C-alpha cells in the first residue's frame, strides 16, 4: 500500500515571519498518487460522513482518469466552495475520519485532493454548464458567510432572484474576518465569491439587517417571498473575570478582525493599528485560539502560549492546527484556568491561573477539570480571549416575534423559524460550529425555502 502523501508546508521559521499560506498543497503528480490510494468502496462511508455529501469516489475516479474538469464539476454539484472547504474543513473527523483505509493505515488525503481540484477550478475559471430558469420570486439572504453563500447558490440555481445582505464592507463573513490568511488566503474567498456573482447572485454590503433594514421591511416593502438568516455567531464570550477591560486584553474577534479584515499587520501602510507585546497568552483550545496565537507570533510576539483548562487530548482544535502551532513555537500550558488579569494603571501586566486536575468524564465525554486552589501567575503583555462566540442578537432585538432559545440561537423546525417566511441556518441556529456544517445547513435550508415558496 502506498503511503499517504504528506502535505508540503512552509518552513516554520520562515512562516512565522509572514502571513502566506502554511500548507502549500499537492502538485499534479502527488494528486494522482494520492487518488490511486482510494479503494472505491461499494458503500463509501466518506460520502455519508461529509456534511454536504460530496460524491468523493466519483471525483477521485475523475482525477485518476485525468478529467480534472469533471472532477471539479462533480464536487461543485454538492459544494460550491471546494477551494475553501479543502482548506478549512475538519476532514479528520468527517470524510477522512470515515475512510476505511484509516482503520489499518492512513486515510486518503481527501481534503488535499478537494483543495487541488477547487484551486484548479478557480484558476481555469471553470463554469458549470447550466441554464438557470428565472422565476419571478425573490429570496433575501442575511449574511455572506458560509451558510448564506451556500443557501444563495442553491436558491439561485433553482431560479430565484437572490440578494445577499452583508453588514461589513467585505463579503465572506467569518471567512474574511475570522480565518487568517495563512490558513485561508483572502484571494481564494474573493475568487469564490466572484464566481457566485457570475451566476447572478446580487451582493449588497454595508446593510445590517435589523438596523439598516428590518426583517419586516424586507418582507413588506421589498417583497421578498422568503428570507434566510445566516448571520453567524459574532458575539464574543467573556471569561467574566477581573481585569478583562484592561488595556492589552483582546477578544479573539477583535484581534483577528483587526488583522484579517482591516489588515493591521500592514500598519502603518494601512491605518488600522494593532498592538502586540513581547509575551502573549491566549485562553482557549479551539481553532480560533490557535489562529490568534499563530497570528500573535507573526505580528512579532516573542513568547506566545495557550492557556487551557484541560489536557492536550481534549483540545477541540483541529489536529493539523495544533501541530502547526507547536511547530511555530507556540507553548501549551495546560490544566490552567485564568482567574484574574492583573494590571497597573489600567495596563495588563499578569495573568493569574488556577491549576486544574482532571476528574470524572462530563457530558462532552471529556474529563471534567477540577480546581485545586493552587495558582500560577505569568507576566504577560497581551491576553487574548478565545473561548467561543454566541449568536449576534441584532436581528432578534428588532424582530420580537422571532423565537430564540436562552442562548440567543434562533429556534427552527427544518430550518423554518417562528415566522413562516423566515428560515435560518448555520451558527445562528447551532452556536459556533464549522464552515462546512454552516454550508450544509444553508444548502438544505434552500430546499425548504423552495418547497415553502412553491406551497404559498
Amino acid at each position, binding site marked *: 500500500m502506498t503511503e499517504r502523501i504528506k502535505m508540503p508546508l512552509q518552513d516554520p521559521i520562515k512562516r512565522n515571519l509572514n502571513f502566506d499560506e502554511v500548507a502549500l498543497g499537492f502538485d499534479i503528480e502527488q494528486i494522482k498518487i494520492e487518488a490511486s490510494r482510494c479503494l472505491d468502496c461499494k458503500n463509501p462511508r466518506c460520502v455519508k460522513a461529509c456534511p454536504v455529501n460530496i460524491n468523493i469516489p466519483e471525483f477521485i475516479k475523475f482525477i485518476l482518469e485525468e478529467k480534472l474538469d469533471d472532477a471539479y464539476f462533480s464536487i461543485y454539484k454538492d459544494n460550491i466552495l471546494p477551494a475553501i472547504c479543502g482548506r478549512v474543513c475538519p476532514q479528520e473527523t468527517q470524510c477522512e475520519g470515515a475512510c476505511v483505509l484509516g482503520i489499518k493505515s492512513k486515510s486518503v488525503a481527501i481534503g488535499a485532493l478537494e483543495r487541488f481540484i477547487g484551486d484548479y477550478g478557480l484558476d481555469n475559471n471553470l463554469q458549470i454548464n447550466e441554464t438557470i430558469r428565472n422565476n419571478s420570486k425573490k429570496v433575501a439572504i442575511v449574511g455572506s458567510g458560509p451558510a448564506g453563500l451556500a443557501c444563495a447558490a442553491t436558491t439561485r440555481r433553482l431560479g430565484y432572484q437572490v440578494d445577499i445582505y452583508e453588514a461589513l*464592507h467585505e463579503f465572506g463573513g467569518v471567512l474574511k474576518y475570522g480565518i487568517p490568511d495563512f490558513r485561508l488566503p483572502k484571494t481564494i474567498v474573493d475568487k469564490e465569491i466572484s464566481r457566485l456573482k457570475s451566476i447572478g447572485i446580487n451582493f449588497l454590503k454595508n446593510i445590517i439587517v435589523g438596523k*439598516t433594514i428590518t426583517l419586516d421591511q424586507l418582507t413588506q416593502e421589498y417583497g421578498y417571498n422568503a428570507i434566510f438568516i445566516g448571520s453567524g455567531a*459574532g458575539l464574543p464570550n467573556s471569561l467574566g473575570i477581573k481585569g478583562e477591560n484592561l488595556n492589552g486584553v483582546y477578544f479573539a474577534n*477583535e484581534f483577528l478582525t483587526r488583522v484579517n479584515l*482591516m489588515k493591521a499587520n500592514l500598519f502603518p501602510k494601512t*491605518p488600522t493599528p494593532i498592538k502586540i507585546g513581547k509575551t502573549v497568552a491566549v485562553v482557549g483550545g479551539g481553532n480560533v485560539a490557535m489562529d490568534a496565537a499563530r497570528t500573535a507570533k507573526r505580528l512579532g510576539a516573542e513568547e506566545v502560549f495557550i492557556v487551557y483548562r484541560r489536557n492536550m487530548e481534549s483540545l477541540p482544535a483541529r489536529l493539523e492546527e495544533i501541530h502547526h502551532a507547536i511547530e511555530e513555537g507556540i507553548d501549551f500550558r495546560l490544566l490552567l484556568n485564568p482567574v484574574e488579569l492583573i494590571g497597573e494603571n*489600567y495596563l495588563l501586566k499578569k495573568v493569574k491561573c488556577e491549576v486544574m486536575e482532571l476528574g470524572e468524564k462530563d457530558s462532552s465525554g471529556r474529563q471534567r477539570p477540577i480546581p485545586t486552589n493552587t495558582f500560577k501567575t505569568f507576566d504577560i503583555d497581551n491576553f487574548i480571549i478565545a473561548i467561543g462566540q454566541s449568536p449576534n442578537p441584532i436581528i432578534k432585538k428588532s424582530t420580537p416575534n422571532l423565537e430564540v432559545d436562552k442562548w440567543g440561537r434562533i429556534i427552527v423546525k427544518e430550518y423554518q423559524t417562528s415566522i413562516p417566511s423566515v428560515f435560518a441556518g448555520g451558527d445562528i441556529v447551532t452556536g459556533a460550529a464549522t464552515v462546512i456544517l454552516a454550508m450544509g445547513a444553508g444548502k438544505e435550508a434552500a430546499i425548504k425555502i423552495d418547497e415553502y415558496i412553491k406551497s404559498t
Partner: protein
Amino acid sequence: MYKIIAKEILNKDVDLMVVEAPLVAKNTKPGNFVIVRVDENGERIPLTVVTNDESTITIIYQKIGYSTKKLGELKVNDFIEDVVGPLGMPSVIHNVKNVLAIAGGVGAAPLYPQLVAYHKQGSKIDLILGARNEEYLILRDWFEQICDNIYYATDDGSLGVKGYVTDCLKDVLKQKKYDQAIAIGPLIMMKNVVNINKANNLKTEVSLNPIMIDGTGMCGNCRLTINNQVKFACVDGPDFPGEGIDFDELISRQSYYNDEEHVCNLKIGEKND
C-alpha cells in the same frame, strides 16, 4: 459609494457633511451613529448622525486623527467608500419638564439630535456650551432655535464665562432645578459633570464614542464598565446613565493607540508616497 451633497467648514478643525445614504437615513433615530470608511483601505470610524431627512444624513467630525483628516480632504460630489448604520440604541428621551444639557467642543454635534427630540416633546432646555474659544463653539444658531437659555464657557473668555463648562454648571445649578441632564464631550468633562450633578441629585445621560471596529457587537473593543457590569458602547449604547461609568478606565482605553495615531499622522505630512 456614498455621495457628499454638501460640506460646511464649522471651524479650523471641524467640518459638517451631508451625505447621501437613503437606507441609513430612513431608519435613523436620535442617538444613532454610523461607521464610515473613507476609502478602500480606510479605518472604520464611528460618527453620530446629527440630522437626517428622507435620503441624507448629516455628520460632523473633528479632523483630529488620520482618518478624519482624510475625510476632511473630500469635497462636495466626492464619494465616501462605506457608510453603514444606523448603529447603536436610539437615545432614551425622558419625559421631563426641565432639561440641562452640557456639551464640550465637538460633543455639541451628537447632543443636537437629542435636544431636538426633547424640544419636540415640549421640554424646556437650558444649554451650557463650551469650547476653547468662540470660534470652536459650533451649531450656535441651531441650538438657539430649540433652547430656552444658552450659557457659553470658553477657555480664553472670548465668549461667555472664562473657564470650563463645569465652572458654569456649578453656577447654573445654584439658580435652577432640573429633572434631567445630558452631557456630551471629552471623557474628562463628562466625568466631572457627572460628579457635580451627582452632588446635586441630578441624573446625567452621557454619550460615548470609544474605539470601534465593526460597530455591531462583534469585536468588543468598545467595552466599558458600568456598575461593575461590562457593556459594549456600540450595541448597548452609545448613551448610558453616567453615574456608574468607570471613566478612568475609558480614558485609558481611549489612549491605547495614541502612539500609533501619531505614526499615522506623520504619514499625512509625507503624502502620496
